[in-house]
């Protein structure tokens, strides 16, 4: 099992998958991310996987799980850098990656996280003033 480094930049946690990982490492990463969200109060998670030449149903489910679990801890998740061949394969496998935000690259991903944060802050403010 390999430990995958998570770095915090500003409000975001950033993970870059640089090599094919086994299932336990993927599950470990999921747990580590949630602990980091709790510890740091990060409101964004960015998972970069441009180095991966395959995402199978296990990894696909892990990405949706990370998204859902982070959401319950008030953090948005954006997956970036999915290779075109991986995107095609995901569709053929029939994986929908429901609720998962994606962006082309890290820069676009960080911009999207920023947008999601602003949108949330905006809607939160409105609800407050409604009361």
């Amino acid at each position, binding site marked *: 099992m390999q430990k995958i480094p998570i770095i915090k930049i500003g409000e975001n946690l950033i993970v870059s998958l640089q090599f094919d990982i086994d299932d336990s490492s993927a599950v470990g990463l999921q747990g580590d991310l949630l602990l980091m969200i709790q510890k740091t109060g990060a409101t964004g998670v960015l998972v970069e996987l441009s180095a991966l030449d395959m995402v*199978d149903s296990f990894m696909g489910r892990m990405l949706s799980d990370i998204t859902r679990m982070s959401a319950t801890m008030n953090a948005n998740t954006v997956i970036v850098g999915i290779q075109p061949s991986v995107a095609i394969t995901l569709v053929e*496998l029939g994986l929908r990656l429901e609720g998962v935000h994606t962006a082309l690259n890290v820069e676009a991903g960080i911009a999207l996280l920023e947008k999601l944060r602003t949108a949330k802050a905006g809607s939160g403010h409105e609800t407050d003033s409604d009361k």
Partner: protein
Amino acid sequence: MRQIAINEVTIEREEHLLRARQAAREASSAMGFNLVDQTRLITAVSELTRNVYNYAGRGVVTLEKVEKNARSGLMVTVTDRGPGIADIELAMTDGYSTGGGLGNGLGGCQRLVDEFDIRSKAGEGTVVKIVKWQS
């Protein structure tokens, strides 16, 4: 049909799934498959070997180059002597899983390759054979 052995990987532990994917990566790249087909093959091998590991505990993957009518392809055979599958049609259905998975492994794998053959008998094991032809 001519068959030329390329590689064989035994699946017994979780890290062997990585080894099987690496074998598929090397074979498909050495044969000159385009990137999308390489990804399809690696993904298909990953799905089938995870099933072996999850449901049968152990098994074997063999990779062979096949030649037929001046076309060549990669054939992958995944064999186990696990519990087998009682209802293959049901197991092939997207969303059906007895293991808490997404249930897209077998059906998805079939869509990723050109030929897909599954034989299984409850109590005896499962053999899945897939072929991807070079375009």
